């Protein structure tokens, strides 16, 4: 009988995706929060908006964002925000979590590149969020009375992936710097809040001073959220797409490389100091 698969990396990827999907499906509460939180936040912000802007709220919103439906804008932004926070926290938290249950160092016994394995975990979460995003987007688009064609959907998925996957690199940096102190989640929360602030999930980045806008240029989710809102709301005057996507791909490579550098350094040290097994 044949023993080993032909494409080992693929086997590992499938293994990780199946494991993560099964576990997520058994923690159903988390899924419910992930799907519903963006709506709750949209309602919250729309309420605040009306309280502050009164009758003029909708008009002001359109003038500032170019989007007619606040629900659409805020829900898409919110979904993307959930995805980005989840990814950063998951990519760093997973290491802590697996250390706690004792599965972490077992991965080091298998013939795999461990950084790749943690990245596969990020891919698994991203796939989940693609689904959540598609569901939420379809709903708000339908409410707004329009539809996306297959090409646009493909584009939307590519943009979501390019926006959130690089954050796994950031998660690995956080993990590498903080796993020793066992409080990964604290730093991960701070980092993901900053990313959220600089991404313009709920507001256009033009509300910030020029310097902040410049910094936001290197945050992949800022591009993702801008592009997505424009495509989904069918706004005219789209930003030059090819250029943006290239920039995002470059950012993605940069973030992941950064993650690899930091994590590899931690790993080497951990092997010497016996940190792999601590919990």
């Amino acid at each position, binding site marked *: 009988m044949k023993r080993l698969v032909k494409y080992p990396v693929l086997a590992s990827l499938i293994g990780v995706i199946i494991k993560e999907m099964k576990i997520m499906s058994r923690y159903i509460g988390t899924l419910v929060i992930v799907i519903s939180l963006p709506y709750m936040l949209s309602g919250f912000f729309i309420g605040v908006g009306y309280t502050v802007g009164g009758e003029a709220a909708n008009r002001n919103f359109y003038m500032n964002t170019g989007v007619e439906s606040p629900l659409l804008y805020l829900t898409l932004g919110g979904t993307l925000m959930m995805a980005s926070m989840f990814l950063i926290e998951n990519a760093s938290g997973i290491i802590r979590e697996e250390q706690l249950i004792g*599965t972490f160092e077992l991965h080091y016994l298998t013939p795999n590149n461990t950084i790749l394995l943690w990245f596969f975990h990020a891919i698994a979460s991203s796939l989940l969020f693609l689904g959540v995003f598609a569901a939420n987007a379809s709903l708000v688009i339908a409410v707004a009375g329009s539809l996306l064609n297959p090409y646009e959907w493909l584009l939307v998925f590519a943009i979501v992936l390019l926006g959130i996957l690089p954050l796994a690199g950031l998660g690995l940096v956080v993990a590498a710097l903080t796993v020793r102190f066992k409080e990964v989640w604290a730093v991960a929360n701070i980092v993901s809040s900053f990313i959220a602030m600089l991404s313009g999930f709920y507001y256009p980045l033009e509300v910030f001073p020029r310097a902040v806008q410049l910094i936001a240029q290197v945050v992949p989710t800022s591009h993702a959220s801008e592009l997505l809102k424009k495509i989904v709301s069918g706004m005219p005057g789209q930003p030059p797409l090819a250029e943006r996507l290239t920039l995002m791909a470059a950012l993605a490579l940069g973030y992941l490389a950064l993650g690899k550098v930091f994590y590899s350094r931690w790993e080497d040290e951990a*092997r010497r100091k016996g940190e792999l097994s601590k919990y």
Partner: protein
Amino acid sequence: MASSVLVENVSKVFHTREGGLLFRGKKRVVEALKNVSFEVREGEVFGLLGPNGAGKTTTIKILSTLLLPDSGDAWVNGYHVVKEANKVRESIGVSLYSDRGFYWKLSGRENLMYFARLYHLERSYAKSRIDYLLKLLDLESDADRLVEEYSTGMKSKLNIARALLQDPPVLFLDEPTIGLDPTAARKVREVIMELRGEGKTVLLTTHNMYEAELLCDRVAIISKGRVIAIGTPGELKSKVSEHKVIEVELAGFDEGLLEMVKQGRGVIGAAARIRDPVSGLAELRIVYDGDFALKDVLGMLLSSRGRLISVKSLEPTLEDVFVTMTGERLEAPS
């Protein structure tokens, strides 16, 4: 016979600090392994026998590439553990804990399937291998329950099943029977003997001398990071077989008494295990030569402040090798 595991002068020191990030305590240096050398021959069951903190797990981790040695060399299946770590990983199956190392929300079978994929096993082979292992370890009927419902014994056995997934020639089992009831422990021992029958090499650790005697072709006794004796259980016991052994139960024990006993005429070694610190209830194990020694020792015990409860005369065991060489007992109080 070829050697499956070869360890040459391996040392490992841990530098740690007490306390946390904010209130950093004083530095602590733990010499976990000091110039450890031993060889495990192909097809042999080899035991590392030693008390808590002796360095058994550290040795296993270095051999399984999870920890880098500070100095020295080691080879597994002919591959160097630092320079050819990937080759080593392909050659070994490792069980590190008795009841950790699983995803609680996956079933036993799903846990195994995940690791089978990470070992790149072909799907149908993985399935039949997992079926076989679940059967081997008496886990068939619980295979599809979530691991969160498993008892310690079931988790232990599942751990061993996972170690066997890729059908490796060399197995490292860290305390494979710790925390198991006699039935489960017997099952695990049976499996180890079966593996030996298949020609696998097994390196296991234990602080249970009966287990070492029962299972191991050869044993290395390890104390405070040093290998202090290596040999077959018979060879090791022959070091003490000329001597006599008593075990004394005593209330109101103190260290001074032990020191006095150790200095006694004809006493080869003595060690105590405190059973109850409050009442000072302790078990003294005394290895000695000659009847005069027994008379002296009993005299000391009777005239001490302690209260003598019982005295048993015993056949020398592996533990007495440990007692005479280290002045300590092997097993922690149970």
